Each structure stands twice: as structure tokens, then as C-alpha cells.
């Protein structure tokens, strides 16, 4: 969860304790639901007809700091008590350790709205299920700093994984990282970054056979591109808990949903995906040009044309370089520079992301913070109009 957001949302429900996180651009959401049976004791508190169960959010770092050293925790801690005290405004975590020692942490929390992404695995055309180990071994071939990865389906049920390369970036790999740390000028730079030289951009593609998966039910010829870092975060968890990972996906632009299921734990990770746009249909001001050649069977033959396509689609990269992901969402060309700068003023906002606001509303039916435009028709905002599906 810490790979996704800086705040940890705790929501006790009747069906268990839900821990959630969302990233600042609202393009990634994860929830871990621990069933009551996971705990020795689970009392979610009482909720009346007018009151909901109390929920809160705390700083991720503060919470993680309590569980700093896993090996020593395993050796010395017997049990952990978590108490939510609304009246004292404290989340209490008490670790009962060896030798009768008790460690009590009183964390300050903030009240919050319900954090819930809108997604439906039933609406996904494709589904894959694999043991975590298979995917872990596959992603080892990609550099840890890789920003985005493309998952595709090929003939014969083969599944491909390829690192996604940005067209107008100066580097082929860029760490998305916590948004405010990006070093970008506050106004659009006078010159765009030079396009990468194809010879310097390494593309890695990996194909997995159908039988490596526990189940494959995919629409052929489909592909999606999503953020690698957040995916890897979930993958490490899946591997450590030895659970198979299920991937639900649909068309590019629709969120991809990763799930892990266990008798006492339900995990969802929802990531936005890049939508598939033809570069010429976009005005140069949209630096979300993402002409992604469909992975074809004869990929090696297409490599040249892929490289050629990258060269031609450099366009004018206006505005600060895309901090990869959220910029690529489909939207009509409305990258107003003012809007970009305004975005930067927001704390935690990804600089220069005009589609930010729209993208933010991709998942969330409910309004996260007051004052934000609440969008009910989220799917429509996802600009189906702006491309020619190839």
C-alpha cells in the first residue's frame, strides 16, 4: 500500500477491516480486506441507522514506522492490538512483546470520506490467473525503475509483457515516484526534450505460454499498459503470501484490476491504463501521444516500423514532460498551460497534468475532497471518442 499512496485509509466494516490507499493522481487504488476471522478478536464498533462505522486515515510512514523491522517483530511480538478511539482522536496500536514488554503507539488520524474506486471485474473482457511466482520471474527481466509495462495477448493464448517506451521522453525509463519530487519547470520549457534515439532505447518483450497460467480467458489481440511500480508492489505481496494473482482487464483506457483471494483476505489493486491513441489524431499540444503499435505475432518484423513510428510521432511536446502515466489518458486537447500550473500548486499534485482532474474521476463515484468536481459519469469521461480503435 505504501507504494501507492502516502496515506493509509482504515475502514472497519462488518465484513472485516479494510485498509486502502490511493495515489495522488487517483490512477491507482488498492484495498486489503481482512475478514474478521483473520483476527483473534474483531469488533468493528456499532453503527446506528444514522451513523456509519468510524473510519480514518493516517500517514503511511507513521503507521509503517511501527512495524519497521519485520524480522525483529516476528521474534519479539506476540500480538498486536488496534484500537480506534474517535473521541481521543487517536488510533492506538499496541504491540505485546516478549518479556512482558508493551509498546503502545498513539497515532493521530484524520477523518475522511469513504475511499472507494468504481470498478467491476465482471465487465472485463479478459481474465488471467497465474501463480505469483510466474509473474515475479517474468518481471525480473525489467529494470526496477521501469515506469510502465504493457501486457498483451497473442495468438495461441500466449501472453506478452513488454516495457512501455515513451515517445517524447529523453529517457526511456523514468521513475514515477512521489509527485512533488519531479524536477520540472513551473512553466512549459522553451524547448521540448529531444526524442530518444531509437538505438538507445532498449525494448524487452517476454512471452508466456498459456500453460504457465492457471486460467486464461482473454480477448485475443488485446493489450493494456499500466504502471509497473504499483503492480510490482502487489506482486511482492502475492509472492510472499503464496497466492495466485488474477488480472482482469478490458480495453486500453479501462482500468486493470488485480485481485488476490484467500479465505481471510481479499485484495484489489486497480490501475488506470493508457488508452490507445493514433498519434495523428492528436494535436501537438496533447503530449499524451501514445501511439502504441499493437503487439503482433511478428513483433520482430514490426520492430522497425515500431521504431519508425516513434520517430515520427515526436510532435511538439508542449508542457513539462509527462510524469508518465496520468497524462496519457485520452482527452480532448485541452492542455491549458494555466491549468497545468494550477495543478502544481496543489499539494501532492503531479505537475503539469491537465488530464489530472478527469483522470482522477476515473474510478471514484464519490467525491474525495470537497470542491472537486464529482463525476457520476466516469466512464464517459474516458473519452472513447478520441481514437480510432485499430
Amino acid at each position, binding site marked *: 500500500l505504501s507504494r501507492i499512496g502516502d496515506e493509509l485509509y482504515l475502514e472497519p466494516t462488518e465484513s472485516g477491516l479494510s485498509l486502502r490507499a490511493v495515489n495522488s493522481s487517483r490512477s491507482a487504488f488498492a484495498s486489503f480486506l481482512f475478514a474478521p476471522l483473520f483476527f483473534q478478536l474483531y469488533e468493528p464498533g456499532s453503527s446506528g441507522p444514522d451513523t456509519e462505522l468510524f473510519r480514518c486515515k493516517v*500517514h503511511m*510512514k*507513521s503507521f509503517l*514506522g511501527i512495524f*519497521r*523491522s519485520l524480522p*525483529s517483530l516476528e521474534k*519479539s511480538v506476540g500480538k498486536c492490538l488496534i484500537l480506534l478511539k474517535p473521541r481521543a482522536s*487517536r488510533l492506538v496500536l499496541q504491540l505485546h512483546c516478549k*518479556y*512482558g*514488554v*508493551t*509498546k*503502545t*503507539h*498513539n*497515532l*493521530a488520524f484524520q477523518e475522511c470520506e469513504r475511499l472507494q474506486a468504481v470498478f467491476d471485474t465482471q465487465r472485463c473482457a479478459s481474465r488471467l490467473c497465474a501463480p505469483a511466482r510466474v509473474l515475479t520471474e517474468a518481471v525480473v527481466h525489467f529494470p526496477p525503475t521501469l515506469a510502465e509495462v504493457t501486457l498483451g495477448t497473442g495468438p495461441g493464448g500466449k501472453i506478452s509483457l513488454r516495457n512501455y517506451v515513451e515517445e517524447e521522453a529523453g529517457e526511456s525509463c523514468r521513475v514515477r515516484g512521489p509527485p512533488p519530487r519531479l524536477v520540472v519547470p513551473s512553466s512549459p520549457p522553451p524547448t521540448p526534450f529531444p526524442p530518444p534515439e531509437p538505438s538507445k532505447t532498449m525494448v524487452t518483450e517476454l512471452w508466456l505460454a498459456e500453460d504457465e497460467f492457471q486460467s486464461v480467458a482473454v480477448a485475443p489481440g488485446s493489450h493494456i499498459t499500466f504502471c509497473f511500480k504499483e503492480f510490482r508492489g502487489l506482486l511482492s505481496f502475492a509472492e510472499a503470501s503464496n497466492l495466485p494473482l488474477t488480472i482482469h482487464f478490458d480495453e486500453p483506457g479501462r482500468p486493470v484490476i488485480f485481485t488476490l483471494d484467500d479465505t481471510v483476505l481479499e485484495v484489489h489493486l486497480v490501475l488506470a491504463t493508457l488508452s490507445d491513441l493514433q498519434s495523428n489524431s492528436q494535436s501537438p499540444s496533447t503530449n499524451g501521444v501514445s501511439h502504441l503499435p499493437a503487439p503482433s505475432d511478428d513483433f520482430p518484423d514490426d520492430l522497425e516500423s515500431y521504431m519508425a513510428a516513434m520517430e515520427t510521432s515526436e510532435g511538439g511536446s508542449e508542457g513539462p514532460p509527462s510524469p508518465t502515466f496520468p497524462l496519457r489518458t485520452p482527452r480532448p486537447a485541452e492542455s491549458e498551460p494555466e491549468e497545468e500550473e494550477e495543478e502544481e500548486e496543489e499539494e501532492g499534485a503531479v505537475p503539469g497534468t491537465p488530464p489530472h482532474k478527469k483522470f482522477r474521476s476515473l474510478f471514484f463515484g464519490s467525491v474525495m475532497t470537497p470542491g472537486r468536481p464529482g463525476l457520476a459519469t466516469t466512464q464517459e469521461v474516458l473519452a472513447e471518442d478520441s481514437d480510432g480503435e485499430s
Partner: protein
Amino acid sequence: MPFSAQPPASGERYALSASLDNARHLSSLLRAVHFQDHATCLATASGLRVTVEDAKCIQANAFIQAEIFQEFSVQEESVMFRISLSVLLDCLTIFGTSSLPGTSTALRMCYRGYGYPLMLFLEEGGVVTVCKINTQEPDELLDFDFCSTKVVNKIILQSEGLREAFAELDMTSEVLQITMSPDKPYFRLSTFGNAGSAHLDYPRDSDLMEAFHCNQTQTNRYKVSLLKPSTKALALSCKVSIRTDAQGFLSLQYMIRNEDGQICFVEYYCCPDENITEAEL
């Protein structure tokens, strides 16, 4: 094997002269009090005491008894000088800090007296290094006047139980609050940092508790930044005694066993923090 090259000329009398087969017996202890650049050394017939102070609030002493040395002689009643502890440690560990089994650095220390530098002769594997470190006027040292009759509360804990606590002290907290009481929570360490407050409670009947003599409930706060260096001494030690007096002065005494099983002591004294703000308990 103590070296034999460059022996002091016979007839010359050194105010302090000492030999140690394994310089680590000295360097590891000195590291446990190395939170300031300078230290004051006091040599008497009973041994060597190295004192480091900061902010007139905290004092650490490392004691290496004469028995630890193969040879230890002090000509006058006592010899005292101020020296750069950083330089002294660098010299003592000039052959490296990693302790391979079977190898050790032999040390010979000579000090002619007031105004003279401290001479160190270090030898390992046939290689000899000679160091000359300038000495200065000794500082006036704080006297915490901590004697057993003034102690209000005292506990002795096995260091193992405190090590993690000190290593993970919330450094965003300005103070470390220590509560000692004949009633619950008996012995409690508290911090008040950015994330919130944290309390570490040790019950009086814990296996870690070797001695528990608390007569009065006392809660005192000490600056975390001053106490944090004591973590090094804690890491080396097997037992620690924690004592407070009526004014809230804190005494931490660490019992350290060296590689040869000999016992040495390091102690830290700390003044309570005067800027008391309302505690969150």
C-alpha cells in the same frame, strides 16, 4: 605480541605508560562515548577514565581499569589531559576496524606529562605505527554528584530488552520521557513525535528486570538528541542500571564485557529537560 621496537629510553620517566595486547579493549569502549570531538582523560592508579561532555547537560565516562592493561603505571597521583577523541580513535583503529579472529593490534601508550603529546605505538602483524597526538588543558568537568544515598529509583535491566527501543527511538520527538514507579506502568519510556506518542512499558516482573527498586513515582524528560549516543554503549553492554535522584538527574551505567570476558563500565549522566510542556500520556 606487544611490539618491542622504539622502547622508551631507559631512565626517562613517563607520567603515564601503559601496554595493551588488544587495542580493541580500549577503542570499542571509547567509541561508546564518542559523541563529541574532544575528551578529557584522567589516569590514576586504578585505571583510565575518558570523559566526554555536551551542552553542560550530559556527560559520558568510559572506565578501563588498570587490570585490563598488561602494564599500567602512573607516576603522579593522577594525570589529566584533554585530547581529540576522534583522532585518538582513528589512531587506535589505524589497522582497520574489522575484527578478524586471531589478529589484534597491540598498543603502547606513553605520556611524558603536561604539555607533551600522547604517544601511541601500535603494532599488528609486524607492522608498527607511531602516533603523536597533541594534548590540551583539561576542561573542568561537571560533577553530577550522584551517589547511592541520593538515588530515588533504580532498576537494572538486561540490555537486550532496551537495545531495539533505543535504536528505534522516534527522533522526531524532542524528548525521551522516563517514568519510574512502584506502581504501573513501573518503567516506561515515552516519545512524542510527529506521528503521535509512543510508550514502551516494562513490567516489574519481566524476565528482563534484574533489579527493581522504585520508591517513588517519577517522570522526567530528557532531550533525545543528548541520550541517543548512549545507544552505542547499550549495544555493547549486557546489563544497564538506570537511576534517578530527587532532582531528576539520570544515571545510566552500562556493564560491558570485552572479548576476553573482562568487565568494563561506561556511564552516562543527563540533566532533565527544563522546558516542560504538557505531556500526552
